[in-house]
């Protein structure tokens, strides 16, 4: 996951590198997503992220396209 100034910069980067364009998410949304994703990572009872939780987390932040589908 890389940092960009704008959608235009992402297009430029994808064109130059041949990488997939993927999906761009505003930094402050990624901040909130990261807090939820890692909130219990230091907890001794943590046993990994279960698919249901990942699905619910993506849903909460509006990440609902095929790109974010959880197998």
């Amino acid at each position, binding site marked *: 996951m*890389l940092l960009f100034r704008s959608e235009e910069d992402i297009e430029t980067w994808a064109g130059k590198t041949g990488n997939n364009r993927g999906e761009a*998410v505003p930094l402050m949304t*990624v901040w909130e997503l990261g807090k939820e994703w890692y909130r219990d990572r230091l907890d001794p009872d943590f046993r990994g992220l279960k698919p249901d939780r990942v699905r619910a987390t993506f849903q909460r932040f509006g990440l609902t396209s*095929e790109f974010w589908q959880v197998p």
Partner: protein
Amino acid sequence: MTTQPTTHDWAIRTRVYEFFVERARAPRYTDIATEFGISEREARAAYRRLHDAHALLLEPGGDRIRILNPFSAIPTAYTVEVGQQRYFANCAWDMLGIPGMLGTDALIRAKLEVVSKTVGIPVVGGEPQPDRDYLVNFSVPFKDWYADQIHT
């Protein structure tokens, strides 16, 4: 054959995270063997089981921890300064995940693509204070994240 981590392995995982937070580096399995009073062979096997369970990522073909999400055990273009500690993050998501996970203020420094410059993003009062509306681009769909974590 993949074996699930044991309860003891998960206790090792917890300690690995504590060690990383304290020292901004990953413990070798030999460090863990000493701390837990187990053989190096047992510690190495525990690392392997935790790797297979995606609880950490070992170097390809090796025994050293490469990724302990959100931390990177090797230098990257994303640093997070917390007090006197400087952590490396794996990517532009994890650079936010570190202060988020630790619940602390920080100074993030990150490579900005295309213009190839480093930008600072302070986290103050529990919130990032970016100087503009940056975007984080996810180029790999979620279903493929664990196929190649190093390049995801």
